[in-house]
């Protein structure tokens, strides 16, 4: 790596320094826009005791679901964990802890984590189990709870296209949590479908500037579909 060139050549190198008991933020919504090869590399590496913040926990045998197979996840911070039998099994047996976080709050916690905002007030979750033991403040007659920012030792994320400086473009709804997740990771590792030369991407069309990206790798993707719904012609 030289200068602003963020490209690494192997998945091993991409996750160098990831150790047991670290906090990892992962981009993706369901199986859409997930860093599927980086997840597989964590599985191969055998890192354990991980706290993972991601909207979902994958499904059985796919996405983050792979890391449940060898019990590599200690705690999951997510908004929705249905559709995953292994997850439920480990949760009920006490081997896995979950912090259910409203989806918008989770996104904002990541955004705040990346933007140097330690905490923020939101009406989401006030008066519900999510608001228990959190500071409440009233503004203009409405109640808000204090939510803290989220940062990761690592972020693993997926984008569509990048230049070598790590300037990123996402594709369709595969964008989802990826941009904020990347900003909130001390070491942000992004895998993409295509890496192009610097200067090829129009600066006006870059979704996330390379300043947030530490390591970049090109991969090939299976892109599993969770609910394949079609209409007849």
């Amino acid at each position, binding site marked *: 790596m030289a200068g602003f060139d963020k490209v690494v050549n192997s998945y091993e190198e991409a996750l160098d320094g990831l150790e047991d008991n670290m906090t990892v933020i992962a981009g993706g*919504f369901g199986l859409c*826009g997930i860093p599927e090869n980086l997840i597989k590399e964590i599985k191969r590496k055998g890192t354990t005791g991980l706290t993972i913040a991601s909207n979902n926990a994958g499904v059985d045998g796919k996405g983050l679901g792979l890391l449940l197979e060898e019990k590599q996840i200690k705690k999951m911070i997510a908004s929705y*964990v249905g559709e995953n039998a292994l997850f439920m099994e480990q949760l009920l047996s006490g081997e896995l802890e979950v912090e259910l976080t409203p989806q918008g*709050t989770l996104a904002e916690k990541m955004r705040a984590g990346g933007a140097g905002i330690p905490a923020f007030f939101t009406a989401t979750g006030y008066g*519900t189990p999510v608001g228990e033991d959190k500071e409440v403040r009233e503004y203009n007659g409405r109640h808000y709870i204090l939510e803290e920012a989220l940062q990761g030792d690592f972020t693993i994320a997926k984008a569509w296209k990048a230049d070598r400086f790590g300037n990123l473009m996402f594709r*369709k709804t595969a964008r989802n949590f990826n941009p904020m997740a990347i900003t909130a990771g001390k070491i942000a590792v992004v895998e993409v479908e295509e890496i192009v030369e610097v200067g090829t991407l129009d600066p006006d069309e870059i979704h996330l500037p390379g300043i947030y990206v530490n390591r970049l790798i090109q991969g090939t993707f299976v892109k599993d579909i969770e*609910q394949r719904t079609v209409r007849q012609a």
Partner: protein
Amino acid sequence: MALTREQLAQRVAQEFKDGYYVNLGIGIPTLAANYVPEGVQVMLQSENGLLGMGQFPLEEEVDADLINAGKQTVTMVTGASIFSSAESFGMIRGGHVDLTVLGAFEVDCQGSIASYMIPGKLIKGMGGAMDLVAGADNIIVTMTHASKTGQSKLLAECTLPLTGKGCIKRVLTDLALLDIEDGKFILRERAPGVTVEEIAKLTEGELVIPDNVPEMAV
């Protein structure tokens, strides 16, 4: 007769106004997209980061990168836009979405809603529901009025863990359309063939019955 799922969806769709940005929850709310009134244009928001959600794709149009909040493959309408989850919930929390429709297990006459967890059963999570009920001003909750065994779901106080406190103003059940004002349910419309007495019997929270309660046009 209690409304069918399709009739519930039809009645929801009557609330659509031209130029509305609408977020529809999974289930009956999503069905409402099939009954957008003539001459009305609505834009569907999907909280995973899409404004301008279209119908399901043809087999050859299926794109793994294009799904809705229920993780189903979808298409985009002309004029659609894509954004991040933070931006998506910024527009929800910021009150920019004109109408939100979602389901519930229970609603009470204080406007609280329980929709995400039944203790002792499988824990799945709230997804975006807590953000949607906290952020939107104009929310319609669609649900069945009572359980199969005749237990009211329109309560004096919710018994299940809350999704939101004091945030619901309108409920559409298979029996009635009700507003929530000052700690009371106000009966606005009844399903065709359903009597005020039947509705009153299945409403546990305080119910105000105006002199004239018209039948729904579905």
